[in-house]
């Protein structure tokens, strides 16, 4: 589904990713683990076309995603939930969802389907995004991305700073997406959450790919977590 083929990328002269290769399959949750600054968020930004590639190719099925301008990437079917949510704070919940729907010209039935996953947002449709609680904002960030009807969903620390009940709700949504056949690339700092959710885990070290293994293998080899994440 989504395949990164030896990509290198960075900001100006600072190269962050070096020859990174990854693959996420439909209905799979692949989790990226690594220390701060290892290049996890940059990997997601590179997939979205927000960081220019120096070399390598990103594929979505048979389509060369890396050849598209950034605004065409979501239209191809890649949804993005960035770290810190980055909602359109001054717009209402309904308007944030509308922005998500517009990219692929989706109709109200898509919005209705998304809202069944996040019923709490239905009560907040007229409210400005900046007035929502942290958990509601995270729900909105995910709902906005799901309005794209993505084949691949990039989630950058979706449970950061949330209370446990909210984390459980977000987890259920991610599991539901896997069951619906969506490929999920997840960046998560909490190792227990990774082990709970991920089908496979890929380690990043200094912008390069390290070991890739199943969650079961990682459970059996926790020392790798210490090596790559240092916790």
């Amino acid at each position, binding site marked *: 589904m989504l395949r990164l083929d030896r990509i290198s990328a960075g900001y100006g002269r600072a190269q962050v990713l070096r020859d990174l290769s990854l693959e996420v399959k439909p209905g799979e949750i692949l989790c990226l683990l690594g220390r701060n600054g290892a290049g996890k968020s940059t990997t997601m930004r590179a997939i979205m076309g927000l960081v220019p590639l120096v070399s390598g190719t990103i594929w979505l099925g048979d389509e060369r995603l890396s050849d598209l301008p950034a605004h065409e990437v979501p239209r191809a079917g890649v949804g993005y939930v960035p770290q810190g949510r980055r909602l359109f704070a001054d717009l209402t919940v309904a308007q944030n969802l509308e922005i998500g729907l*517009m990219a692929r010209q989706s109709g109200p039935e898509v919005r209705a389907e998304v809202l069944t996953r996040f019923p709490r947002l239905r009560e907040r449709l007229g409210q400005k995004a900046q007035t929502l609680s942290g958990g509601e904002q995270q729900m909105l960030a995910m709902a906005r991305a799901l309005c794209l009807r993505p084949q691949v969903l990039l989630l950058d620390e979706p449970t950061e700073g949330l209370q446990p009940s909210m984390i459980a709700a977000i987890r259920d949504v991610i599991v539901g997406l896997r069951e619906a056949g969506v490929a999920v690339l997840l960046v998560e700092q909490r190792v227990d959450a990774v082990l709970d959710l991920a089908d496979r885990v890929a380690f990043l070290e200094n912008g390069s790919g390290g070991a890739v293994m199943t969650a079961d293998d990682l459970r059996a080899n926790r020392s790798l977590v210490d090596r790559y994440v240092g916790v």
Partner: protein
Amino acid sequence: MELGPYLVLATLEGAVTAAVLALTAVGLSLVFGVMRVVNIAHGEFFMLGAVLAWWIAQSVVEHPAIGFALALVAAPLIVGALAVAADMTILKRLDYDPERTIVATIGLLYIIQQVTLMGYGPDARPVEAPFNTRLALPWFEHGAEGWQMIWPWGLGTTSYKLAVIGAAVALLCAVWALMARTRIGLVMRATQADREMALAFGIPVERVYAGVFGLGAALAALAGVLIVPIQQAHYLMGADPLLLSFIVVIIGGLGSLPGTVLAAVLIGLSDGIISVFFSPTLAKILATLLVGLVLVFRPQGLFGARGA
């Protein structure tokens, strides 16, 4: 004439200034708000609107109203298209960098000004108003026989000046409706809020920027067309609207459209009143002083959000 009628007269003159200023400043505010580009050439788009209005009006030999109506449509379209071309060939290449685009728009200012000088010449030229009926205004005085309605000599305005105020209000309402009630406005507001996230949700940001730059220039050109029957078209006439627009946009809050309109009314009315009672120079001095005070005590402007 006594003070009361004199004040009404000054307020009316100020309202015309405020109306034209609000249109010009909203264009500037829109460009800054969405694109973060400080457009120093904005006054030249105003001037181009006025010059094109003269050119179109004198090309149409029928009734002046026909030429003026044609100018009202064609001048903003031509200037808007020119601005879109400038955006795509200059600003886009600079990646909309805030510092470099200031220098680029200074260059654009001189290019437009000098090309106009070469093609149009140094003369100030009038455009006939499509209608210009003199309207006397009544005043009420309390005398020995109670309240009386009188018609003081000199207290009046023209139908055209009232039409300018009406047209500006209608256009500002249209801009508000565009921003608040349409999908185009939603896309512009999302781009203004977070350019990168707009891209990540399929918004072609560069096309939005080109459209906004064109719209901002078209609004300035419209203001230029509206003012040219009152003030003659001249190749240097863009300087004052640019200065006043910056004053208005800073006082109102950079990127805040309601703030811009309110500040335009404040500055326009005070400019009219102070100019009539004292001098236009004093009006400009006080407006500039007000900007200084706003920058010191409330840098985000009276209606702007902190950090905007």
